[in-house]
């Protein structure tokens, strides 16, 4: 069986600074992987490469065996056509820290846009699906509100519904709760837990250690552009193997 996601020797630089210095990672269907690590360690960058929001200079990323973003044939590496990349992006769903809902569309229209324009679904069918997913994240009554009329937690749930409705093979979450007030965090985390229970494959960057501990099948600790440690959350949180992880965990548990 091929892995759902396979990253080999991923390298990424911004100008002179190498931000990812060779990341290898594999993930099976149904895995829920939390990525932790201190600020600037490259967590966000890794997600953005998987979704081709950033070009990268070296290594390969494969989803379901298909190479993302580049064709490597006969030693030469060429960026795929923009249209092809757009299609590949739709294989993954992404939720951002700042929600990034489209402010000029209602919640339902936010969810429908990709369905209609990318999947070519009819408007009625798309509407049905959008409503189904908004119900699932507990926003049945807010379908026709605009983002500006929703609280942060509600906006984030719409953003998740928008990504999920595209039926991605893999969901990427980048610190989806850190722009939220503490009391709103729970509603979003609950939605993610439910998705995990449904068997959705997920890769999530988070600062909520407790949540990472409870929900993930595996945890990756990023350190200075590399994977510092990786394993089962029970073992990692209780018995960190590296000093750097031990230190990081100590700092993160104050609250």
């Amino acid at each position, binding site marked *: 069986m091929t892995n759902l996601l396979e990253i080999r020797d991923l390298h990424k630089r911004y100008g002179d600074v190498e931000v990812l210095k060779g990341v290898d990672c594999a993930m099976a269907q149904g895995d829920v992987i939390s990525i932790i690590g201190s600020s600037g360690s490259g967590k966000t960058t890794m997600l953005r490469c998987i979704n081709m929001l950033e070009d990268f200079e070296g290594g390969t990323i494969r989803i379901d065996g298909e190479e993302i973003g580049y064709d490597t044939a006969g030693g030469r590496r060429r960026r795929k056509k923009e249209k092809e990349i757009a299609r590949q992006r739709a294989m993954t*769903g992404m939720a951002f820290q700042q929600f*990034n*809902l*489209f402010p000029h569309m209602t919640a339902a229209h936010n969810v429908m*846009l990709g369905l209609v324009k990318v999947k070519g679904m009819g408007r009625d069918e798309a509407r049905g699906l959008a409503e189904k997913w908004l119900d699932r994240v507990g926003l049945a009554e807010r379908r026709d509100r*605009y983002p500006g*009329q929703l609280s942060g937690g509600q906006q984030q749930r719409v953003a998740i519904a928008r990504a999920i409705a595209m039926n991605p093979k893999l969901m990427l979450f980048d610190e989806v709760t850190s722009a939220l007030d503490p009391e709103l965090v729970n509603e979003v985390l609950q939605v993610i837990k439910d998705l995990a229970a449904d068997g959705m494959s997920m890769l999530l960057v988070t600062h909520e250690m407790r949540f990472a501990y409870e929900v993930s099948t595996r945890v990756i600790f990023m350190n200075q552009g590399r994977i510092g440690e990786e394993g089962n959350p029970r073992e990692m949180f209780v018995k960190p193997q590296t000093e750097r992880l031990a230190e990081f965990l100590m700092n993160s548990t104050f609250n």
Partner: protein
Amino acid sequence: MDIAAFLHVLWLARMPILKGVGVTISISALAIVVGTLVGVGVGLVLTYGKGPLRWLVRGYTDFIRGTPVLVLVLASYYVLGTVGVDLGPFEAGVFALAVFCSSHVGEIVRGALQSIPRGQTEAAKAIGLTFPQTFAYVLGPQALRQMLPAWVNTAAEMVKASTLLSIIGVGELLLRTQELISRTFMSLEFYLFAGLLYFVINYGIERFGRYIERKTSVPS
């Protein structure tokens, strides 16, 4: 001023004035429509264009914006003729104003597009939209709202700039007014009256802009 005498003269002169208003409105409307269409292209190149093309368009907007409109008008009437494009005064004038309008609209479009958070493009990419789709459904509509007030200003600017076409003999409101003055010698009265008409046209544009703004505003 003798108000009654003025009103009498005004009544006799109603047709030329109405014609002038009509010409002023058609010049402005044409210049605004053409200028806006071209300006959107200019704005797109300024925002997303690369290399020499962008460089060229940057030069175009800077040069046009620094040139007095009067000079643009004279140039399109006389200089275009020497390169074989012989336009009548009306066409030449509209052309000049449209060029002027396009450079302003280009800057407005650029400003509006640049003020949309990057996250919007990324979210659109993330659900698999191509760039043209992203522009059509996500960036364009948001930029439109953003640029509306500045665009309304430019539209009013065009109406005022249309007065310069009197130099090349286009019978717009100002030239009509001056013609009336040359017969009646009531200069102040007619200039103020023309000012009032321009005010009404521009105020109409302003209200219209507000109306569209309200219509398209997003609840929050």
